[in-house]
């Protein structure tokens, strides 16, 4: 390992750092926003609503993110209907497709997680809320979800790290985020160890920051006296 090549790799990788962070945060956010309606649908008593949601979760969790990315970037991009739609500005950009693919993938995992947490809230709570006069929506937002989200918080911390790792797939569709930048560096210098090590260190640093943030949120939102909730 050459020290000079190592240091030379740093600014190159840093150029890709911004896109890695953007893709990670945007995809994670998309996943969170989509996961809640998905979870509610999957947990619904109405089969018309539950089955599509459950099928979506099943299919997305059963196939690689890479395939889903290619379906969106190459597959959808080839359809006339998509090219004429309002989503085209997003879908024609590889970054947009990467965010969409990783985000929708994350939504399936988090959706399944949330659904599990929601159904495990003791039904007595909803009953008490109903008797007190709370409506369905109020019961959901004031009683069920605050507890369900607290339950899944530790796993969400892990999820954002997985989203960050998935962001590296964007390099497969020409996006120059950190992994893409590292490959560019390697093709220039034929020194894979230096470039990939630098990239690895940056990824680790990012993962550490995410872990710290989530631990902080967990501590702040914890219910006093309750260490690990059991169903």
């Amino acid at each position: 390992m050459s020290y000079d090549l190592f240091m030379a790799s740093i600014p190159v990788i840093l150029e890709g750092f911004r896109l890695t962070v953007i893709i990670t945060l945007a995809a994670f956010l998309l996943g969170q926003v989509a996961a809640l309606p998905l979870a509610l649908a999957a947990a619904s008593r109405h089969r018309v609503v539950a089955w599509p949601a459950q099928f979506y979760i099943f299919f997305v969790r059963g196939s690689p993110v890479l395939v889903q990315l290619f379906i969106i970037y190459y597959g959808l991009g080839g359809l006339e209907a998509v090219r004429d739609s309002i989503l085209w500005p997003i879908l024609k950009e590889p970054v947009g497709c990467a965010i969409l693919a990783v985000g929708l993938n994350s939504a399936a995992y988090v959706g399944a997680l949330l659904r599990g947490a929601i159904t495990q809230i003791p039904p007595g709570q909803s009953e008490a809320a109903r008797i007190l006069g709370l409506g369905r929506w109020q019961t959901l937002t004031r009683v069920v979800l605050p507890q369900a989200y607290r339950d899944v918080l530790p796993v969400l911390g892990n999820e954002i790290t997985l989203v960050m790792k998935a962001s590296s797939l964007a390099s497969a569709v020409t996006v120059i985020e950190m992994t893409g930048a590292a490959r560019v560096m390697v093709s220039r210098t034929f020194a894979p160890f230096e470039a990939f090590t630098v990239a690895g260190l940056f990824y680790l640093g990012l993962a550490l920051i995410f872990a710290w943030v989530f631990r902080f949120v967990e501590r702040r939102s914890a219910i006093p006296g309750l260490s690990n909730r059991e169903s």
Partner: protein
Amino acid sequence: MTDRKKAENVTQTDAITVRGLEKSYGSVKVINGISLSVKPGEKVVVCGPSGSGKSTFIRCICGLETRSAGDIRVAGHDLALDCSNIRDFGGDVGMVFQHFNLFPHLTALQNLMLAPRLVRGQKREQIRKSAMEMLERVGIAERAQYYPNQLSGGQQQRVAIARALCMQPKVMLFDEPTSALDPETVGEVLEVMSTLARDGMTMIVVTHEMGFARSVADRVILLDEGRIVEENTPEAFFEHPEHERTREFLKKIVHE
């Protein structure tokens, strides 16, 4: 119509009216035709062996269980067969559960304040004041900022009673309120319930606590196999039971 009503002894001023209540789970008939009228301020204790349907009965009254047949009128509201209009109660019916069902992510005080704010839209300061008063009333004001899992079972149940009372219900229903409690804490909860009774609340209590029944109830009812077997004043019920099944039941209770 008026004659019929007179004949069935129903008055418009009844707090709770149940007529011909039936409920089945699939092919099993859990409630087999129960009729009951409770006047305002009356305390009714319901007891019976397990499987008698007493829990299902009280849950039907507050709209948590749908029913196959029968009319239910509680606190001035007619309850639909499928309980779809339970929202109309708006807290007029108070329910205390065997397992408290407090909201674990809220403090005791927050538990009390939630419904009045969301359902009645009352102002925060006003609700806080009445909530604290209610906690005083059940003797737990100093734990207002505690979370449910930091409270004992008896304390949690008292908070649960206070929470129901904050909605100023016309009727209070209790589904085996002390069955899940340690023996030492049963007393403090029964105490609160007795005080509530003395203050004039209309109550239906499903319980095994016969001492409570004797001292507080206006009427004691024995349920068995989904039917009312015996219905009488406490003295008559305990001293001179009319039915064999009542006598059997009382014998079993004494041995507990």
